[in-house]
């Protein structure tokens, strides 16, 4: 499964990077969303993938019954997803402002800080 995931994540990365290299501001946002998805999946895969072993402890026991998936990685991804969203909200507002300045969906209009 990890092998397959490696290719899938690679594909997501490629799509994200391609979008970020476009001149359109909107495409840039889409690229960002794809990128955060790819990154989360990557961490998830790196921690090892197990089917049907949720990190839960059954009622009445002190430790899980048998092995479970890595809970720390899951906690990490949860954090990453939420932060990713915060960052995205921020990005969208920022981009909207930038758009108001240049009035075109074109990053290349934004090179005012060039010498």
């Amino acid at each position, binding site marked *: 499964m990890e092998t397959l995931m490696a290719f899938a994540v690679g594909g997501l990365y490629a799509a994200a990077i391609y979008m970020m290299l476009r001149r359109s501001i909107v495409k840039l946002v889409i690229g960002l969303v794809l990128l955060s998805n790819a*990154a989360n999946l*990557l961490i998830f895969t790196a921690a090892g993938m197990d089917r049907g072993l949720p990190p839960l402890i059954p009622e009445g026991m002190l430790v899980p019954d048998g092995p479970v998936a890595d809970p720390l990685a899951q906690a990490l991804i949860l954090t990453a997803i939420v932060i990713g969203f915060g960052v995205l909200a921020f990005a969208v507002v*920022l981009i909207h402002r930038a758009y108001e300045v*240049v009035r075109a969906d074109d990053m290349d209009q934004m090179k005012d800080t060039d010498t």
Partner: protein
Amino acid sequence: MTFEIPDFMPVIPELFVLGMACAILVIDLFVPQARRDITYGLSQFTLIGAAVLTIALASPETRFTFNDTFIADGLSDLLKVAVYLITAVVFLYSRPYLQDRDIYKGEYYVLGLFGVLGMMIMISSYSFLTLYLGLELLSLSLYAMVAFNRDSARASEAAMKYFILGAIASGMLLYGMSILYGITGSLDIKEVSDYLITSSAGLNVPLVFALSFVIVGLAFKLGAVPFHMWVPDVYHGAPTSVTLFIGTAPKLAGLAIIMRLLVDGLGPLHHDWQGMLTILAVLSLAVGNVVAIAQTNIKRMLAYSTISHVGFILMGILAGTHEGYAAALFYTLVYAIVAAGGFGMIILLSRRGFEAENLDDFRGLNERSPWFAFIMLLIMFSMAGVPPTVGFYAKLAVLQAVVQVDMIWLAIFAVIFSIVGAFYYLRAVKIMYFDKPEDESPLPKALDMNVVLSINGLLVIVLGIFPGLLMSLATGAISW
């Protein structure tokens, strides 16, 4: 590892800053624009209070809390106090600037305080995740501050670039950390280091990849070549008061995370990151110093100068000795002081409707104000590393550290490009002292700004004559 109620003592300064930042955010809503000084005063109080708390809680031994994800030691105490003081100076310089441009808003200070909080977390984090959170906290504050001036197209654009590139860099850093987690099974810096020391596996490929990604992320945040492109655009585009903030305190936090990540965490891989840092340092010195010459905008010039200083800081770190780390720390502290003065001078010369951003705006400053021309002269000499300013000892310490580990070629390289760099600092001096002023207006500014800027400038030479104190602070903070 046993579980217990976390010890809150070491995080009291953080909690204080957090509480005050939230309080100021709320209070500011009820403060009319005419009385914005309340917000300003509270922000300064927060910083001073945090400094008092940090100093009061400081102790020579290292304290851990929150399951060893948080550390308080000599390094963190020193850097935090430096961050408070520099930020307080930044706030003070910013006030007249913001007032003149009708953007004297509470949000500037609230965001600034959140940025300070982010830096405090970065400085004290001892776990990858905590460190990353601190970094994001700081970065988000900075992005928002750059975009702060609504009228400026440049600022929005700069914020945009900064944000996108910053997000990529954060991603790389995070990725590097997650590979490390994959290999070592831990996010705690101490345990990662223990693993690397004990595992006889030594160097394996994924470890080097992890290292590469961590270094790319760090290099971006510090602005080392070839991850530096955001620096000039952001320094130039941001309101000068924000440039002042970005250009000073975050470098201290950046040094802290390098120390935590590379030295404490990945210290056993020193041999590998030494090579990578050498390349970054060499490129930063070369590009920073050479490109600065072509700049006519002084903010851009200082941006490139920052890049070259980052090269020096990296040189201290890559030496990999106690002397080297102490030298890097000393250099960074000095840099923050000097850069605060430099950007402060730009603010001093600016006024409503006029940004003294161009080198030409400094023409004949000696005739307009001999005193501040002298202050600027000290700042420029310090950046060029000319004694008896403190910038000299910073360069000296780094060069010594590098020569001690037998990297003479690097020292000579650094010196050659410092000579190139001296050219543009000295050009600024020449413009102030030898050219005729284009703008004859006097420099009316708030008294507090003038006094603090003078102290800032004189500090450059006082510390230059008596560098012992700062040097021993730096050495003391490194000897753990």
